[in-house]
């Protein structure tokens, strides 16, 4: 019955809310949701994760969560926070690092892109905020 005695990590402390870096070590967000799938043998495996306010809003729930999801949908068309498959992860210890650069992942960080384009890049000195 005992699982293999290897080092394991906590879903809620080591994965959820952890910083995610892209392939160039640039922060792209935090893990807002983990997707899991049960196999034929009953084994539960991580299939991917979601970044973005829409996923976080759904997780938080209630009025605050609803407001977060609504804001993301209105500003960045980020309704569902796209699923990043587990294969896109290069390393998960100690930090989560993706294989690809953020510029190659147009579906990621919709709200941050919107803010960078429409708000931060218009602030003096913020010209490189666009992704």
């Amino acid at each position, binding site marked *: *019955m*005992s*699982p*293999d*005695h*290897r*080092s*394991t*990590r*906590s*879903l*809620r*402390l*080591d*994965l*959820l809310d952890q910083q995610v870096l892209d392939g160039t070590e640039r922060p792209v967000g935090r893990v807002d*949701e*983990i*997707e*899991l*799938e*049960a196999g034929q043998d*009953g*084994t*539960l*495996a*991580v299939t991917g994760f979601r970044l973005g306010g829409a996923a976080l809003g*759904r*997780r938080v729930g209630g009025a605050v969560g609803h407001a977060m999801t609504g804001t993301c949908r209105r500003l960045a068309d980020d309704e569902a926070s796209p699923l990043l*498959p*587990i*294969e896109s*992860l*290069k*390393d*998960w210890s100690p930090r989560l690092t993706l294989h690809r650069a953020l510029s190659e992942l147009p579906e990621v960080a919709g709200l941050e892109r919107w803010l960078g384009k429409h708000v931060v890049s218009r602030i003096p000195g913020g010209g490189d905020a666009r992704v």
Partner: protein
Amino acid sequence: MRGSDLLGLPVVDVSGAVLGPLRDLRIDGDERDGRLTVRWLVVGGREWAHRFGYIDGRTRGPWLLERLLRGSSDSAVAVAASAVAQWGPDQVLLSEPAGAAAVPVETAARTW
């Protein structure tokens, strides 16, 4: 299924006895082969003790908070994921009696 949907679900053994709410999942694997697998369920204990990391011993002090929250680990148990018959949507159902499936969380944590 979403991880946040699983957390908080009641964990029920084969006789229908409730062990407690699912507080955490321990995951093992290697991202290089694209396979991260759930190995253990952490069940019961106070929510804040898990949230602050007192249950698995990663957080120490301040002594008052530690004393209040570490006591919660007495009621937390670990269950091997291989003992699960059904994951959700309303409960996590075990294929074994609680006495056979659950071990004290401190015992399991030595292998984490």
